[in-house]
C-alpha cells in the first residue's frame, strides 16, 4: 500500500443572490480537519468572468482541488472543473449544463416559485423580500432576513450565457439534492445527478443545505475528498 496522499484543497463556488460567505457554516470544520479551503468570489456579471475568477482561486490553493458549487455555482464548476488542477466535483442543489445548454433552458423545463418574486432593475435580477421564503424558507426567520439583506443580484443575462467545458463528463461527481427546493426544482436536480452519474444524497432542505444542513454537506464534501485522495494514492 502506498503512503496516503495529502488532502485535496476545497474550493467553493457560490450561486446567485449569495457570495462566498454562504459557505461559512461548513468551512470551519473542514479547516479543523486539515483541508485547505478557499471560497471563490465573483461578480455574477458574466459566466466567463466568474469561471476566470474561479481559475484564479484555484491558483491560490495547493493542487489537487475539489470544486464545490451551489446553485448557479454548479454551472461555474462544470466549466472551471475541466482544469487539470481539479479532481472532483460536488454539486449542492445546483445546475449542471451539458454542452450547448444554458442554465435558463434547464430552469425553464422545471419552473419554481421563486421566479414569481423577482424584479429586474438596473440590469440585475433582485429577489423581492417575500421571495426569501422560496429560497431559504427552512432557516430561522432572523437568518432568512440576513440572507435577503445580503443577496447579491446577478446580471440579467447571466443564465442565458454558455461557456465551454463539461467537467462532469470526465471528473467524479457528487450531488446533494434538496428535496424541498423551491428555487432549483428537486426533479431537475435528480435528472442532472443521474445524467452525470453522480454519487447522490437527498436531503430534506430548502435551496440552501449548506445553511440548513451544514453537517450533511460537510459529510459529502469529506467523502468526495477521501475518494479523490484514495484514487490518487492508488494511481
Amino acid at each position: 500500500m502506498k503512503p496516503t496522499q495529502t488532502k485535496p484543497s476545497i474550493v467553493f463556488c457560490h450561486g446567485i443572490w449569495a457570495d462566498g460567505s454562504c459557505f461559512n457554516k461548513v468551512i470551519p470544520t473542514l479547516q479543523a480537519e486539515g483541508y485547505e479551503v478557499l471560497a471563490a468570489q465573483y461578480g455574477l456579471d458574466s459566466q466567463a468572468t466568474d469561471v476566470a475568477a474561479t481559475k484564479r482561486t484555484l491558483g491560490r490553493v495547493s493542487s489537487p482541488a475539489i470544486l464545490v458549487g451551489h446553485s448557479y455555482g454548479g454551472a461555474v464548476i462544470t466549466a472551471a472543473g475541466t482544469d487539470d488542477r481539479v479532481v472532483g466535483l460536488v454539486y449542492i442543489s445546483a445546475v449542471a449544463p451539458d454542452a450547448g445548454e444554458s442554465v435558463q433552458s434547464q430552469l425553464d423545463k422545471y419552473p419554481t416559485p421563486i421566479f414569481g418574486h423577482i424584479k429586474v432593475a438596473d440590469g440585475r435580477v433582485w429577489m423581492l423580500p417575500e421571495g426569501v421564503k422560496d429560497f431559504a424558507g427552512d432557516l430561522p426567520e432572523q437568518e432568512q432576513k440576513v440572507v435577503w439583506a445580503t443577496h447579491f443580484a446577478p446580471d440579467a443575462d447571466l443564465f442565458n450565457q454558455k461557456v465551454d467545458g463539461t467537467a462532469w463528463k470526465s471528473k467524479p461527481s457528487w450531488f446533494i439534492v434538496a428535496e424541498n427546493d423551491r428555487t432549483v426544482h428537486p426533479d431537475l436536480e435528480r435528472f442532472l445527478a443521474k445524467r452525470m452519474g453522480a454519487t447522490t444524497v437527498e436531503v430534506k432542505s430548502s435551496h440552501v443545505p449548506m445553511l440548513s444542513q451544514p453537517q450533511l454537506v460537510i459529510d459529502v464534501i469529506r467523502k468526495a475528498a477521501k475518494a479523490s485522495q484514495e484514487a490518487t494514492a492508488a494511481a
Partner: protein
Amino acid sequence: MAISQVPISTDSFTHKVTAPAWKTKPTWYMVATADRSINPDQERMMAKRANAKTVEVNASHVAYMSHSKETAKLIEEAATSAHVNR
C-alpha cells in the same frame, strides 16, 4: 473571513474620487484604534476632515465584526438623525 475574501482590482486603489460625498452629506465615523489595515491616525484625520461624528473602538480593521453592538449603535444614531422626507 480570510478565505472568503474578495480580491480587489489593483485599479481600485489608484482611481481618484471626483466628488466626495462627505463634503455635502452628514457623516459618522468609527475609528478602529488597533487597525493594522488602515492606519488609525489616517482614520482620525479623515474623520476630522469630514467633520464626522466620531467614535473610537479598540478594534482591528473589522470593527463591525468584533464590535457589532457599537457599530449597530453608530448606524442607528445616523439613521435617527438623518432627515428623511417621504
